[in-house]
Structure formats: C-alpha cells, structure tokens
C-alpha cells in the first residue's frame, strides 16, 4: 500500500516536471484556455436562449415574427461562435502540445546520444527508440486530451450550475447531490475494473508470448509431437482471457454508459416532478423546464469525458516516468568529469600510444583487460589477435573512451587520455568497423559526415585514394546517391571502401581497425587490401584482426588471451614458437576447410539448411 502511494506521488511529480516543459508556451496555452472558456460560455448560453424563445415567442403564440427571427439568429449565432472558438481552441492546444513534445523529444535524443557506451549495452535498442518516439507521443495526449478535457469539464460543470441556479436554486442543489454519486461511481468503477482490465491485458500478453514462442519453436513442437498438448495449454489461457474480458464488459455495462443514462433518467423524473408539482400553486414557465432538462443532459457529458481520459492520464504518467528515468542517466561528460570550456587541451601530433598496466572490467566481476602494457611508436603497425572474448576489442573501446578503465594509464603522445578533449580525441583517432555503418544521407555525406572542414574536393580525393571512386561514379547521381537505410543496396566490400574514404577524409593520426577485413568477399578483396595500405601511410595503426592472413606484415603482433597479452612479435617469430598464435593459425586453417569462415556462395546454402 505504501509502495503504491509512493509510486503514485512519483508519477505526479513526473507530471509536474512534464508541465514545466510547457512553460515556454505558457501564454499560448493561456490564450487557448481563455478561448476554451469563451466557447464553453457560449455553449451554455444556447439553452438559455431556447428558454427565452419558448417562453416569450412560442408559448404565448407567435405575434412578433421579427423578434422570433432575431432570437433564432442569435441562437444560431451562439452555435456558430461556439463552433469557431472550439475549433481555434482545439488547434491551438494541438499546435502547442506538438511543440512541447518536439522539445522533449529533441532534448531526450541529444541526451541519449551523450550517454556512456555501457548504457547501450544494457538497454535494448528497441526500448530506447520507443522511449524517444512512442513515449513522447503518449505525452501529447496529456496536453491535447487530458488537460483540456479536465478544464473543459470543470468549466462546463460550473457553467451548468450557474445557469441552473439562475433557473431554480433548489433544483440546482438537488442536482448537485448527483456529483458525489457520480464520483462514487467513477471511484467504484476504477476500483472494480482495474484488476480486471489489468488481468485482461496480462492474459493477452501471456497468449501472445505463448504464440510467439510456439512459432519460434514449432519445429521442435512438431518433432516431439506436442501439438495437442500445447493447444490445450493455449486454449486454457485463451479461455481465461475470454472470461476476464466478459467480466470486463459486464462491469463496463453496469457502471459506465448505462449507469449514467440511468442517473440521467432518475434526475429527469425528479426535475419533471418538481416542476409539475410547482405548477400546481405557482407560475411555471415551460421554457425553464425545458432549459433545465437541457442543462441536465449536458451535466453528464463532462464526467464521461473524464472517465475516458483516465486511462490516457495513466499512460502519460507511466510514459513520463520512463522518460525521466532516461533523462536522469548521467551523460559521458559528467562521468569523465570534464568541463566543456577546457582550454589547455593537448593536440595529437605524432601518434604515439602507450598502455601502462591497464585493467578494465565491464561488470566489476570479470576482467576484460588484466594488467595490459604495450607501446606503439608513431607510424607503427600493430595487430592484436586472440579468441573472441580475449579482450582485443577492449583495447579499442578504451582508446575511443567508450568505456573507462579502472587501473593503469593510457597515454597518447605522452599525454593521459583523459586530458584530451572529446573533439581532439575523436578527430585524432580514426576507427574503422567490422560492419561499416552507413548513415542515411548521400554518399558524399557518408564520407564527409557533414564535418564543415571537409569539402567536396576532399571527399572525392579521399574516395579516389581508396578506389571507392569508380563504384560511386557508377551509381545514379554518383556522390549524391542515397544508399538508403543501412546501405543495404551496397555490397559489404563497397560499404567498407566507403568507410575507408570516410577515414581518409578525416585524416586521423592514429588508425584503429576493428576486424575491418573480417567480412570481405572475393570481388573487392584486392581493392580493399590495396586501400588498407594507402590508409596506413603516415599513420600509427592498431588492427584488431580475426583473419591472420591480413596482418602478416604487421610490425608487431600482440596475442591476447583472457585479458592478458600472452605473446608478442612478428608473424614469422610467432609461428616458430609453440603457443597460442600457432594454434590460432592452425585452427583457422581447419575452419577454412570446414567452411565455418564466411565464404560467398556457401552462406546461401547454409541459411537454407
């Protein structure tokens, strides 16, 4: 119970924080509120005008045609005015709500991109994307649905009561007694229906999980002849769902629409009875009765609206809570303890690298790097090899400052890595991925990456250097070609060449190759090998490699195992020694025979088998 309350208050605190984002648009919202108020007032005026028409123009018999026409026009005028104002009000709310959502989204997106790498390890992509787009979309409902509905309901109820008081104070008080009844019904409904609605949802989720799982495991289900058994389980869940759902419908029928209609009917009877009784000994105007009935009919509408918005409110609260959870995550800058206006940041000139007794653990249990030390002189080509999980990629992760090491020191040009500015670091280090990432945008943009200092000439020169120019020229619109999401229309080799051009254009002092040649097929292999040599010119290069054939000309090969460097030397030196490197080399030859390394042509068959 206490936990529940806490959750509620934190939800409402999130709500308060949410409303703060509307602050830049406060005058706009205020304007919309005023228009809403005006529209509601006009709406409330209509029954009153009808009363006048009935009492003064119709009941006594029409003798003033002009007056009737005037009053008719006035009545239509209130409808027209109210309709126009309602429209303006609605559009205003929408427009400003969209702006608020846009602001929240933009801030959230920028924030997420600045979160440390470790955050992305634990958070599935789909969920993060959903936070940024879907959850913020849910918030819109808050600004266009929930808030206006509550305000309008409030305005309406107040307006109705004022009008009723003017018509008959005693009846107004009688009607007021309906409010606690309505609130009680809403409360009762919430209380009774909540577990049922929740049950329906979770049962449906169960069913869907079961279907999903069964579809994935259908081969094993069929191979083991368990179709009937699973069908039985499924039917049980399905039956439970239908029972809960039926209960849900019954509760809705008892307490929602039909119930308000019932109350309306009873209230109607009271009003009619009262006026009829009054008419026995005093003058009662039929217009008053009519207006009262009309107001009474409108009285229930706000409650229905609020009940409808309740689930939107709940969803908004949940969404805002999730959003703020992401926003409360610490960004990289704050983690590295860097201030943005650091002035005396060193530059990367020669490209010397040094690891001194570096220790890294991602989860503070298992060591990813264990006391690793090595030095790379400017211009040297160093390769790191080892089984997957041996820690070879961790070296790159640390250099790119994707993660923070726990012990030891990393120096670039004899400066500690932490003293380098973000820009300097990522400008000075050029990272080439195993799976080159192609961004949406043109080919040229994918090379320049929209960095201002890289002109079109630079782009084309870079592409020519790595032999990417010929294939780009052949595309429609050549450099202005848009490769589409993920660059799927390009071959793996072409994508890799593109990323090489990107790196050349960036002109980093230090080149980091992260398994950059692992997935290369035959056709472009030759180009890629040549391009790699061009890339390495005048740069310090660190290559994390799976295929040993690509690193045989390295100045130094570091062999890693379980986070430690276990061997180092050139290819020839290492082959002569008993040990890890030779084992890896032999194992790789076997793998090639077994076809487990990727080979074009075979992959298709493997996918089918």
């Amino acid at each position, binding site marked *: 119970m206490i936990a529940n309350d806490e959750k509620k208050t934190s939800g409402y605190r999130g709500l308060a924080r949410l409303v703060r984002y509307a602050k830049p648009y406060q005058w706009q919202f205020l304007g919309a509120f005023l228009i809403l108020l005006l529209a509601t007032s006009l709406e409330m005026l209509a029954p009153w005008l009808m009363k006048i028409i*009935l009492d003064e123009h119709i009941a006594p018999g029409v003798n003033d045609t002009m007056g009737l026409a005037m009053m008719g026009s006035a009545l239509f005028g209130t*409808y027209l005015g109210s*309709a126009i104002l309602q429209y303006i009000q609605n559009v205003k709310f*929408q427009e400003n709500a969209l702006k608020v959502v846009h602001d929240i989204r933009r801030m959230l997106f920028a924030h997420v991109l600045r979160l440390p790498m470790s955050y992305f390890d634990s958070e599935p992509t789909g969920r*993060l994307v959903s936070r940024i787009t879907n959850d913020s979309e849910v918030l819109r409902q808050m600004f266009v649905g929930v808030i206006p509905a509550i305000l309008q309901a409030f305005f309406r109820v107040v307006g109705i009561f004022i009008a009723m008081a003017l018509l008959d104070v005693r009846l107004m008080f009688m009607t007021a007694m309906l409010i606690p009844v309505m609130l009680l019904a809403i409360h009762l409904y919430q209380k009774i229906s909540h577990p049922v609605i929740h049950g329906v949802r979770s049962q449906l989720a169960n069913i869907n999980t079961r279907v999903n799982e069964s579809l994935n495991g259908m081969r094993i289900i069929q191979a083991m*002849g368990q*179709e009937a058994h699973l069908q039985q389980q499924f039917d049980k869940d399905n039956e439970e769902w239908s029972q809960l759902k*039926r209960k849900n419908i019954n509760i809705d029928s008892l307490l929602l629409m039909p119930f308000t209609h019932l109350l309306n*009917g009873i209230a109607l009877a009271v009003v009619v009875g009262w006026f009829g009784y009054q008419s026995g000994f005093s003058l009662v105007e039929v217009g008053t009765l009519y207006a009262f009935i009309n107001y009474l009919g409108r009285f229930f509408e706000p409650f229905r609206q609020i009940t409808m918005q309740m689930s939107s409110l709940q969803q908004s609260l949940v969404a805002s809570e999730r959003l703020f959870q992401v926003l409360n995550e610490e960004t990289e800058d704050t983690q590295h303890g860097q201030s943005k206006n650091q002035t005396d940041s060193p530059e990367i000139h020669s490209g010397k690298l040094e690891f001194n007794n570096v220790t890294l653990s991602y989860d503070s249990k298992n060591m990813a790097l264990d006391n690793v030390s090595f030095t790379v002189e400017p211009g040297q080509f160093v390769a790191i090899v080892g089984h997957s999980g041996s820690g070879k990629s961790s070296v790159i992760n640390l250099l790119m400052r994707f993660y923070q090491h726990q012990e030891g020191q990393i120096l670039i040009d004899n400066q500690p890595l932490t003293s380098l500015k973000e820009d300097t670091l990522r400008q000075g280090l050029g990272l080439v991925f195993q799976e080159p990432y192609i961004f949406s945008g043109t080919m040229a943009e994918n090379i320049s990456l929209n960095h201002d200092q890289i002109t079109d000439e630079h782009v084309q020169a870079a592409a020519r250097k790595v032999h990417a120019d010929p294939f780009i020229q052949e595309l429609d619109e050549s450099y202005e070609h848009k490769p589409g*999401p993920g660059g799927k229309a390009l071959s793996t080799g072409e994508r890799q060449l593109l990323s090489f051009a990107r790196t050349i254009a960036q002109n980093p002092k230090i080149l980091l190759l992260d398994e950059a040649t692992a997935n290369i097929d035959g056709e472009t292999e030759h180009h890629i090998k040549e391009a790699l040599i061009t890339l390495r010119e005048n740069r310090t290069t660190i290559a994390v490699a799976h295929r040993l054939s690509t690193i045989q000309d390295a100045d130094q090969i570091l062999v890693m195992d379980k986070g430690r460097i276990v061997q180092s030397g050139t290819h020839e030196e290492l082959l002569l020694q008993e040990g890890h490197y030779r084992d890896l080399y032999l194992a790789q030859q076997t793998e090639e025979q077994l076809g487990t390394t990727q080979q074009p042509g075979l992959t298709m068959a493997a996918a089918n088998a």
Partner: protein
Amino acid sequence: MKLLWKLRFILKDYWQQYLLAFICLQIVSALNLLPPWLIGHVVDGIKDKSLTNQELFNYVAGIVVTGVAVYGFRYVWRAKLYGASIELIRKQRSRLFAHFTQLSPEFYQQHTTGDLMAHATNDLNAVEESVGVGIMTLVDSLIAGLTVLFAMVFLVSGKLTLLAMLPFPLLVWVTKRYGVALYSRFGRSQAAFSNLNEETRESITGIRAVKAHQLTDRQTQRFEQLSMEAVEANTSVARVDALFGPSISLFFGLSFVLALVGGAWLISHGQLTVGLLTSFTLYLSQMLGPMLQFGWQFNVFQRGSASWGRLEKLLSRKPKVSNAPDAQQAPDDTSLSINIQSFSYNAASDEKPVLQGISTEIAAGAFIGITGRTGSGKSTLLRLILREFDLPEGSFIQMGNIPLQQLTVESLREKLAWVPQEPMLFSGTIADNIRFSAPDASLEAVEKAAKLAAIDEEIMGFKDGYDTLLGENGINLSGGQKQRLALARALLADAEILLLDDAFSALDMKTEARILKNLMAMKGKKTIILVTQRLPELITADHILVLDRGRIIEQGNHDRLMASDQPEENTTEHWYAKIFRQQARTLLHPLEVKPDTVIKRSDVA
C-alpha cells in the same frame, strides 16, 4: 458489409445471441421514445394548467420505470453482443493456433515470426472490433436512428421532421470531405513518424559509429529536422481533425434552430403543441449518436474486412506434410534405409539440389556419424528423416522397409528424438522443459535424463533447482546449458532413434566426453545419428558419412577413413583424415592432450 457476408459462417453459431442483442436494442430504442413524449405531456399540462397530481405521478413514475428498464436491457444487449464477439474471437484465435501447429516447416521458412504474430494480434483485433463494436454501431445506428425518426414523423410532425432534417445531408457530405482530407494527411503524419523512428533507430544501433565519428551534433540536427516535419504533419492532421466536433455541433445547432422556428410557426397555426415541440427537440438530440456512429463504423468494417481476408488466406494454407489416407503406424523395426536421388527445398526453381545421390542403410541400434563442411546438407538429411519435407518421386527413406510417406506423422515422430542445432526452449520451469515430450513424466525420470545430459549438477546449483523458471527461449542460460537441456529433453522422450544435430558445439571437451560416454552406453538399444564437425566425437561410430555439397564424398568407420594415404593440400579427398589430424592438434590442445592420447580418451568414451 461485405465482411459480414464473409463472416456468416462463423457468425451463424452466435445468431441467437446476436438476435437477442438486437431485440434488446430495439426495445431500448423504443423505450427511449417514452420520456420525451411524457415530458411533452407534462409541458402541455403545465401550460394548460390541466395537470393533476395523479397524472404527474404517472408521468414521473413512467420516466423512472423507463430509465430502470432501459438500464436492464442495455446491460443485456451489451453482455450478449460483446459476449458473442469475445467468444467468436476466442474460437478463431484457438483455430489459428491449431492451424499454426499443423503447418509444416516449409511454411515457417517463408514467413517470419513477426509477420505471423501480426496476424495473430492485429488482424484478430480488427476482426473482433468489427464483430463487436462494429456490428453494435451499425445495428444501433440503424435501429435507434429509424426508431427516433419514426417517432418524430408519426408522434410529432412529418413537416417539422423534414425541415429539421435539412442540414443532415449537408453534414454527411461535409464530414465525408473531412474524412478524405484527413486520410491523406494522416498518411503523411504516419510516414513522418516512421521516418523519425527510423532515424532514431539508426542513431542508436550505430551509437559506436556516432560517437567515434563525432556525429552527435549531425544526428541531433537531423533528428530535430525530422521531428519538426512530424510536428508539421501532425499539425495539418489536427487542423482537419478538429473540424469534426465543431461542424457536427454547428449543423445540429442549425437543425435545432430550424425545429424551433418551424415549430413556432406550426404552433401558431394550431398544428402543434408546445409539449410536442419539446418532445421533438428531445428526439432530435437522440439522433446525434446514431448519426455520428454511422460514418464511423465504415472504417471499422473496412479494416476488419482486410484483416479477415489475410486471416482467411492464412487459414486456407494446407500443410505440405500430412498423413496419407491409408497411412499406417510406424513399425517396430526401426532400421532406416535412405535413398535420395535429389532433393532441393524449392522444387520449382532450378537451384542446385541440397542433397543428391545419398544412399545408405542405418541398422537399428547403430551409431552413425555425419560430418562435412558447413552447408553440405547434413542438417537437411536429419530434417528429411524427421519428415519435415516430403521427398520427390524416385527418392525415398524407409523405416523397416515402409516409406515414411506411408506412416502417420505422429507415429513416425514418436520413434524419433531430435536435438536441433539451435536449442529451442520454452518459458516455464526447467523440469517442464525436460518433460516437454512427455508432460506426465515423473521427477525421477526428469532427473535421470538431466544426469545423462550432464546438466543435473548445474540445475541443482540453481536456487530453485528443477523449478527454476526459464525466460523466453532460456534467455537466462548459457549456450552450453541450453544445449544440454535440449539433449535431456530428447533423452526423456525415450525414442528409438536419437537425432543429434551438432548438439554439443557449445560444450567444452570434458562435458562433451561425459555425455558421449553416457550415449555410448545406449549403443545397440538406440540408433544414434550424430551430425558434428568435431571429428573426435566419431571415433567409435559404426559408420561415418562425409558430405560435401550434398553428396557423400567418403564413408566408413574411423579407422578406415584414417587409413587412407597422406592427404593432399586443397582437395576434398581424404577430407576426414586431414581435418581429424588438424583437430587432434588444435581442438584438444587446451586440455594438453597429445594426438596419441586421443585414442585413449575415446576408449574411455
């Protein structure tokens, strides 16, 4: 409407419920005519000062009783109508699931789980909405609309009704126009949203590249631009969407004004009383609901119809593999005889066969090894034994001299226990997963199977032991643990033939040896067909098939395959001997086992 015709076969089971609901709807509509009529009488009574207390009491009581009765009937029709739609959808969902379990693997190769899930969720929801809310609004707007119209014409005045109804065709026309405008704008807004989604997904999946290439600002700018576009598209939707409400109230207002003015004229000519005019305006407001609903239900039916079309197509798919009319039980003799001329997954296309010229005999109780490069057709051979696919003319697999096609699928698969390459587990407890093939198996049997699969100690190490709950596809287990659970599951099935498809790839040498030893103890009692790329597993096999590109390139037992001459480089000849030597050197190295001790290890096994 067309949908209802299409759905008539599944709807007809519920016709009583629907009919009852419709009758109740009609009663509700008729009863709803009463209060305005009574109020009209009261108004006239007040105006003429002729209202007696008895009359007043009757009128008031009439209103209350009507209210209560309407409440009751409303409850009944909702319960009946929605109840029928729930029941209908429950049945269809169950039917769809049953259909899924019947379709052969060939179907699952063509459809992703995501697509099928969309059918099972979105499409069923759309149909549910059609047969529930859709039918309700259609019938309600027709019944209630016509009933009220009837009352207006016959209880009050036909002329006045005609006058008051004048704005309605205009309203219908206007809202239709809005609908068209909204549709195209809505499409744009959805496209903008999906662009935004795509951009976000791209930045997050490529977060390493974004950080490495300092693209934070570029991506944020692009995001902002797309988000702005989404704002604009949504605003343009809002501008049209916001027209509906005000337009409806405006036209209704017009209708009221016409009714009042026209009513006044009729009253002054003695053709109407004030009370009847009051009743009339109250009826007019009862028309609002049906008018609104009538336009809305078209969308619902359109969506439902498209969804039902997709579901029907799905449900009409016939499984490729099914029991022949004269199918018989699998024989006790479980020897297999395989003769495959040629097999490919897609017979129509002229792609290269996955298997060709495979001919071999597998005696009951034998230990058969199948090896070869990736993609050489090893798994396909197991799939054919499982009869996931039927063989073309001229090729056959026989069990005890009866072709598999002549056996019932169930009885065949009862003879087989298959451990797939990718272990597939289900949410539930570990024990449930192991006893998957025999839900009634005792805990002792479960434990015994786990012991044989060398996983019992690890299971006991979990806090809840055999009752440990597994996440979806055993997400909380390591690859090796999953493989061994899948093995335990197959062992519990206690089938005559064990099909192991690269089932130990995630295990270390020691565990693998333990399992192999346990399996060897069953030799002679169970046929074991083991697909593997770790050749040392096959040392004790009775017969080994080496496949390459769908053909058998070598066969024989280990000694015979090793006895060949020194292999030449870069040919597929003596593939087995060459790979075995390489693996003996590299795979066994971590255990510090020298090649000459390999034989010893396998002797133990």
